[in-house]
């Protein structure tokens, strides 16, 4: 028993008593169950486990604070309508937006932020961190920190390209199927069924074994694999709109299919499509990261998070966490996008319960 452990429990129990006194039932339940969990974890893992919990709680509080501040900042700089919507955004969504913003800045200004080039060998392999290298060197002596920054540009950029392509193919086909109907609709529906009935990673591996691994092929393959999801959603959403009276009226006016898609259907189906774009991005991003991890995605020396994990994995057996940072960067971005999408879905569909 030392001061840290005593202080830890005193703080937790004191805070839960305060919460109970002021009638904050949920906060009390959370704090007190954390105390109970700490007993178990503390006995099993000792003092260091309690330190880990403290650090996690600190990180959580810090990110909640950042999210709150970022939301206020967004509310202040945006127009009235947007500000109104943003005010109701949960902290998780605000945190997601903050993370996406940070990644965007990192990706766009990568050459300015990174202290070294992405393929520049500056020291010996697996050199420990020092003044010039924040996170040490990788297996070839390149600066880890710079490569992570460049990875934001390469990995996320590639995933964004593939998502955009998948999205445009899928959405266009879906809108076309909904407006034309008939045989075209049937044929496209069956093709989508077939593509969706093969697990995506397996399908990607099959195609990559045939066409070889280069970036353009990778983007096209990933886009083809994920476009049926968008196709189905767009077709379902547009299918509900096509039967509306105003579409009938536009048809009778003699408007063409393209006009219908552009002016009548699209403006009425943007909300679910934007949410789908976010989800689709997560899937594509995870697939590309997985392929890169397997050594079949983005090829060296381009800095990429998936392959960085694989290349530096040996460090893990020495208890280093450096290889986990790029993997964590992938997870963080996906979580952030999911948070924002959750909020959008909640807003658009009214998933209140």
């Amino acid at each position, binding site marked *: 028993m030392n001061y840290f452990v005593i202080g830890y429990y005193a703080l937790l129990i004191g805070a839960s008593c305060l919460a109970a006194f002021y009638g904050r039932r949920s906060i009390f339940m959370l704090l007190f169950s954390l105390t109970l969990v700490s007993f178990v974890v503390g006995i099993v893992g000792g003092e260091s486990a309690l330190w880990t919990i403290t650090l996690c709680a600190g990180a959580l509080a810090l990110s909640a604070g950042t999210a709150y501040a970022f939301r206020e900042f967004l509310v202040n700089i945006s127009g009235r309508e947007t500000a109104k919507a943003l005010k109701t955004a949960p902290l998780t969504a605000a945190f997601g937006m903050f993370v996406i913003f940070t990644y965007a800045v990192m990706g766009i200004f990568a050459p300015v932020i990174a202290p070294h080039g992405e393929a520049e060998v500056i020291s010996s392999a697996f050199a420990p961190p020092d003044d010039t290298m924040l996170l040490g060197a990788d297996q070839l002596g390149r600066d880890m920190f710079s490569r992570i920054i460049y990875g934001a540009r390469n990995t996320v950029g590639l995933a964004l390209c593939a998502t955009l392509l998948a999205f445009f193919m899928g959405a266009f086909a879906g809108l076309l199927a909904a407006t034309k109907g008939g045989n075209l609709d049937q044929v496209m529906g069956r093709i989508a069924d077939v593509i969706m009935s*093969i*697990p995506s990673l397996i399908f990607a591996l099959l195609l990559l*074994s045939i066409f070889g691994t280069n970036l353009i092929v990778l983007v096209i393959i990933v886009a083809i694999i994920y476009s049926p999801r968008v196709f189905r959603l767009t077709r379902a959403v547009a299918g509900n709109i096509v039967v509306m009276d105003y579409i009938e009226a536009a048809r009778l006016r003699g408007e063409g299919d393209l006009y219908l898609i552009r002016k009548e259907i699209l403006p009425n189906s943007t909300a679910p499509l934007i949410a789908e774009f976010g989800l689709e991005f997560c899937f594509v991003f995870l697939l590309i990261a*997985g392929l890169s*991890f397997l050594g079949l995605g983005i090829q060296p020396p381009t800095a990429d998070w998936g392959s960085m994990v694989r290349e530096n994995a040996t460090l893990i*057996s020495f*208890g280093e966490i450096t*290889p986990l940072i790029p993997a964590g960067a992938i997870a963080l971005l*996906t979580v952030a996008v999911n948070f924002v999408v959750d909020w959008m879905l909640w807003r658009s569909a009214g998933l209140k319960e």
Partner: protein
Amino acid sequence: MGDVLAIILKRLALGVVTLLVISVLIFSAVEMLPGDVAEAVLGQSATPENVAAMREKLGLDQPAPVRYLSWLSGAVTGDFGVSLTSDERVAEKIGPRLVSTLFLATYAAVIAVPLAIVLGVLVALLRNTVFDRVANVLTLTSISSPEFFLGYILILYLAVKAPLFPAIASLSKDMSLPELLHRTFLPALTMVLVVTAHMMRMTRAAIINLLASPYIEMARLKGAPAWKVIVRHALPNAWAPIINVVALNLAYLITGVVLVEVVFVYPGIGQLLVDAVSKRDFPVVQAVCLIFAATFILLNLAADIGAILTNPRLRHPK
């Protein structure tokens, strides 16, 4: 009962057709190679004689439909031809590895399915409380993390910092079951984390959907205790979506298994597939892809049939 049988047969027929289309797709994907398999395998240094000999050995002189039929009839009986890189029979290469992969997937499923359903129901009962929010964030994080991230975290904490489990799942034939379970615990746990999160969310959504319906409110209003509302009134109707969720996630295990096997150097077919892809060993790639796709389709089929059997409304489509 007659119409149920008819619907199930129809669904089965659809599954078989899908499987056939997939097999055509997997076979013809290799036909799309620039040049043909012989040229692709032998590469730049191939002499015309070499290529001709290879073509004859692989039977490439026959037209594609004939080769497809002989490949398919072989595949049905478990004969996938000869590997291009090692002159072994593909079936011999795959066989023992398939068993290991199935073992790992079963191990993960046995832990994950009961855990996820219980937790999912629990979270649905506690919805809109702090616990629900925390569970939401945790499951979302677990789903959003790539499998290799979770795997390496587990290695770091449970194998390196606290050496409880081995980081590399090396197996041998004469291992006892407890030993085997201990060795494969970390890869199984990785998959459990991902799949449980998925299943929990979907179970929660299914149950909450049900709890909003009027007959549940009626049960509540007449004073039935909360557990009785769930067990007697909600659960019988929730089976269909829950079966669906379980089957879909078992299918998801199949994709996850590739990455997890590579992280833990586990001798399964996922690892074999990745090796075959980088060596461009097409017969192996085709065989493994067919196995994965067939399992995926079968599980989806099982999900649909399970849903039809437990939900009478699905037997009368509009």
